[in-house]
């Protein structure tokens, strides 16, 4: 639904919003190295800390002899898991169930366990860790979730992680839809390391009965690593009470925008936690602090000196997408209409306290975009020692391919263009029973077909002049917008300028710039006219997330800007009415203001001036409009978004993606010849951010489909490629140029009819599907040349 509810939601003319090449406020600092990240802070007299990491996939520490480590000159302390000092801190709110902050049991290789060495340098920490005499008890482990299905395999999670409380009726949304359910009451109880969860809607028997045939296919998603560009690190130190601030004050840098969380952990009033740095490397929907970011205040408190803790590159290879092996059955009529969808997925549950949302989500699999209402999603979930999955939303775009892969395979079976199969199965704007076309989808589809010169061919039937096989693929998805939380904005007119106080970026993205553009648009200003005050005490933070959140959060900013505008105009009218200027007890006559006699309703702000609507030649610069300080606050929820409310059961803003590949049968190499995205995000706010997110999409998508793979030694469960050489993220030489044709139909429900882009164009199978169209052979990702050759029977 367009932005009917908000102020100026249907605005037609934009001066600032949507403008390209508006630089990021922090870009210069980041590009030149001026920016200070958590790992960059150095304090006088600073100590360093490193946490012991498990060399085993699953193990307990039975004892640790610290004497040799403590005998090393420069090693200051070794803190063990049972140190009473840990009782002084609350567990991390995102840390899950733990008996102690630092546990004596590791659930994956590289897991933090048992001891922290504090020393005068990082090198001495390493030396100290080496010198610890650790008595380990190796425990059974699962790094192959298929093997974990064995009911005889001993449970790898202890009683602390009992899940019996998770069986029950699911939470319902306001609309009565079950959301993010883990286990339902009727699900079989967990056996060994295996749990089951089934969500069935509609009438499956009727769905199968309507079908002319059943299509079966597999969609396998391997786990993908969230490679954070700068290591997680923090530096913390304490200062004594002073007359202005009672109680100890904690300074911490590196736990960006998580001041409240840190305050909670250390039982401090939030005002007593100071965190001035704003820089944090970009990361995709990753919301958790790591131990290196949480532990330094405790160590500093214990040792009375500033402490720095920095993860190594190997330490921050965290999972962000869990393994999923889906076997899908579709009931289909002879003309291609899907009548029943049954998803039998085997999923990696990860190590204890991994994000359940990442594992059990069934809302964004794409099934609800179909007219078919008979959907059964049957999950088998296996505990594993593959790694810890932080709360991360990358599964959202990847899971959507459960359906779009089916459409591609169905097209091959029927010899029909997949765009037509999609069109046949996609429901209308308002419900799964709505048979009308979705305008946004139709626009994206037709634009894509035209720009691709789309001529679908059956699999394995087209060769390029150089002999390679040609393939093409298409997928659709909903442009998402999440609006799960209430947002807040404060704008201030002070000293003649508009200020926007914010804590700054939370994940290295440019939400602040987007919000500033919206505020400038509404206030009749240019982007540079608004002063962004980075202040850790500000209530506003870019916590809304990437583009998915910015359009909802931006709606709040838009409302706030209009409140401030009204206050400015009222103050300007009041100022213009004054006949004297007062200075203490004295007053001086003043010349008439050009705006004298105009009421606030008769004024506007245009190009940085307060002007009379009826006669724009009468104006005063905004800087002279009033001497008052004016504040506008606005908080609350933006309008509900279709995506986050109905999970595809209503469709507003859509996108299409297109890929053409060439496959070399003799080497297994795949070249992406063309990659086109046609998104309709409703309205683009900051074009630079928008386009960058699309480029990020192909980085993710190409990496997951052609390169990235997390390899674990089958015998030991040890990660073999937790480094940037052997775990292959694409480089800029690998990533092809993404052609972008952006439509703006204004049918989203964020600011100005906008939706997001992030959980949308990333995908797990568009390139794979094009390779299938080229070769006629299905190749699970990552389709590295060795796998391609094997699939083609060449080796």
């Amino acid at each position: 639904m367009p932005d009917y509810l908000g102020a100026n939601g249907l605005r037609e003319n934009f001066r600032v919003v949507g403008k390209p090449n508006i630089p990021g406020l922090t870009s210069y600092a980041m590009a030149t190295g001026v920016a200070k990240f958590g790992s960059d802070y150095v304090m006088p007299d600073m100590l360093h800390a490193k946490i012991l990491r498990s060399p085993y996939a699953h193990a307990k520490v039975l004892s640790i002899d610290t004497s040799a480590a403590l005998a090393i000159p420069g090693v200051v302390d070794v803190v063990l898991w049972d140190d009473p000092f840990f009782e002084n801190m609350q567990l991390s709110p995102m840390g899950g169930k733990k008996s102690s902050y630092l546990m004596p049991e590791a659930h994956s290789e590289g897991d933090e366990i048992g001891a922290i060495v504090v020393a005068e340098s990082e090198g001495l920490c390493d030396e100290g860790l080496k010198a610890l005499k650790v008595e380990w008890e190796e425990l059974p482990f699962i790094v192959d979730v298929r093997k974990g299905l064995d009911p005889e395999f001993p449970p790898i999670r202890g009683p602390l992680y009992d899940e019996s409380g998770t069986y029950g009726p699911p939470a319902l949304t306001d609309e009565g839809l079950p959301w993010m359910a883990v286990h339902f009451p009727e699900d079989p109880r967990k056996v060994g390391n295996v749990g089951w969860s089934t969500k069935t809607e509609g009438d499956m028997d009727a769905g199968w009965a309507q079908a002319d045939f059943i299509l079966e296919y597999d969609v396998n998603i391997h786990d993908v690593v969230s490679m954070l560009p700068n290591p997680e690190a923090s530096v913390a130190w304490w200062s004594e009470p002073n007359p202005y601030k009672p109680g100890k004050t904690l300074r911490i840098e590196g736990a960006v925008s998580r001041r409240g969380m840190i305050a909670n952990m250390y039982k401090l009033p939030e005002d007593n936690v100071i965190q001035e740095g704003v820089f944090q490397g970009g990361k995709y929907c990753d919301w958790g602090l790591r131990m290196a970011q949480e532990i330094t205040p405790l160590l500093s408190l214990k040792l009375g000196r500033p402490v720095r803790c920095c993860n190594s590159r190997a330490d921050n290879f965290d999972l962000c997408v869990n393994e999923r092996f889906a076997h899908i059955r579709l009931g289909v009529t002879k003309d291609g209409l899907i009548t029943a969808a049954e998803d039998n997925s085997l999923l990696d549950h990860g190590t204890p306290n991994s994000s359940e949302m990442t594992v059990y989500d069934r809302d964004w699999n794409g099934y609800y975009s179909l007219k078919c209402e008979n959907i059964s999603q049957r999950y088998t979930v296996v505990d594993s020692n593959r790694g810890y999955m932080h709360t991360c939303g990358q599964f959202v775009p990847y899971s959507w391919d459960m359906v779009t892969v089916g459409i591609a395979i169905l097209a091959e079976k029927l010899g029909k263009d997949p765009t037509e199969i999609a069109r046949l199965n996609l429901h209308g704007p308002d419900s799964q029973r709505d048979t009308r076309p979705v305008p946004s989808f139709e626009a994206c589809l037709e634009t894509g077909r035209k720009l691709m010169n789309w001529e679908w061919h059956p699999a394995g039937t087209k060769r390029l002049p150089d002999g390679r096989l040609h393939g093409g693929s298409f997928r659709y998805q909903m442009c998402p917008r999440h609006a799960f939380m209430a947002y807040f904005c404060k704008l201030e007119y002070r000293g003649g300028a508009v200020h926007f106080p914010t804590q700054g970026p939370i994940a290295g993205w440019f939400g602040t710039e987007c919000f500033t553009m919206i505020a400038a648009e509404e206030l009749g200003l240019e982007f540079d006219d608004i002063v962004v005050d980075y202040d850790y005490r500000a209530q506003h933070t870019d916590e809304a997330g990437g583009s998915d959140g910015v359009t909802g959060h931006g709606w709040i900013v838009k409302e706030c800007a209009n409140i401030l505008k009204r206050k400015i105009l009222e103050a300007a009218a009041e100022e213009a009415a004054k006949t004297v200027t007062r200075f203490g007890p004295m007053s001086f006559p003043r010349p008439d203001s050009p705006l004298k006699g105009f009421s606030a309703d008769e004024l506007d702000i245009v190009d940085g001036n307060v002007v009379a609507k009826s006669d724009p030649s009468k104006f005063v610069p905004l800087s002279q409009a009033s001497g008052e300080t004016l504040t506008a606050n606005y908080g609350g929820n933006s309008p509900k978004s279709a995506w986050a409310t109905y999970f595809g059961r209503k469709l507003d803003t859509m996108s299409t993606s297109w890929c053409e590949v060439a496959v070399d049968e003799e080497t297994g190499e795949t070249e992406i010849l063309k990659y086109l995205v046609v998104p309709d995000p409703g309205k683009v706010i900051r074009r630079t951010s928008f386009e960058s997110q699309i480029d990020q999409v192909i980085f993710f998508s190409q990496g997951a489909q052609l390169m990235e793979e997390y390899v674990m030694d089958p015998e030991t469960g040890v990660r073999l490629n937790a480094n940037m050489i052997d775990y292959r993220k694409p480089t800029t030489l690998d990533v092809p140029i993404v052609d972008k044709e952006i439509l703006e139909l204004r049918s989203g429900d964020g600011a100005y009819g906008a939706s997001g882009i992030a959980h949308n164009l990333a995908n797990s199978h568009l390139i794979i599907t094009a390779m299938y169209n080229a070769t006629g052979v299905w190749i699970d990702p990552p389709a590295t040349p060795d796998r391609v050759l094997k699939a083609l029977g060449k080796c």
Partner: protein
Amino acid sequence: MRPFNHINAETLDEASAALKKGGTVALAGGGDLLPALKDDIFRTYPNTVINLKSVPDLNYIRIDGDTLKIGALTTLADVARSPLVQESAPILAQAARSASSPSLRETTTIGGNVCQLPRCWYFRKLNNRFDCARKGGDRCFALTGDNRYHSIFGGETFETAPGVTRLCIAVNQGDLAPVLTVLIAKFVTTERVIGNLDFFGVGVLRSTTLGCGELLTEIQIPLSDFAKNARYKRFAFRKSIDFPVLNLAVAVNADKSRYHICIGGVAPVPYIALKAEELLNGKAITPELAEAAGIAAAEGAKPYEANAYKVQLIKTLVKRELLAL
């Protein structure tokens, strides 16, 4: 990285003497050594790092008579952009340019590149997690583990007990090794001159035949027909900052009486495809002959299930490079 002593060597003699004392490692460009130290992959952490870059006169590229001479400390970037190299041995410039990344090529050296340790992920796992045969252990973990990038032409043998031999199947993945092999390079050290066929590999504990304290000082490349009539192909899964899964150099003399074919990434040392060379010697390349040579080059391969693709790659790439020669 753990603490160590750092010494700037002033002479090769000083460096050699330090290395002979034990507990010392030599540092050139650092491309191989520094990650190894950072990841703490060795059984024993060195107490001293001796810097060779402070030794004068080891960074040069010059023609001396009918030989191209390159100082061991010459950076890969200098090799890649040298007009002398580009003119006299273009595939050497090409191979140097394809290694590593632009910034690392400015520091890493040709000597370091040919002396690099194997790229086995068990060998390279941090904190010496796998105490393998390359470190004096009694097994090769890749044999039973994930060996998708490992040798298809056997391995280095080692004894675990008198008369009991086992294999290590780590491979040499250096970019320059196959090229230098087909160009019949010589390796000048502080003690001798080593021919191209004798430099690489001498068992599981060393990746070159350099003895303790022996330092590579110069690489000599004869200015022959082979240097002019050659091709280099690198097959990697990523276009930059990646080691080749397989790389290949082919060269032929002017009258086509002799072909040289060397393949990296398929054996513990650069693999010379003798059968293919014999098939080709004295003949002009035809599509049929190129295909047969590809098949011959892969003859004798005994791949594991995970690395059988390398056989197909050899067949295809040898064929294609011969046709493009």
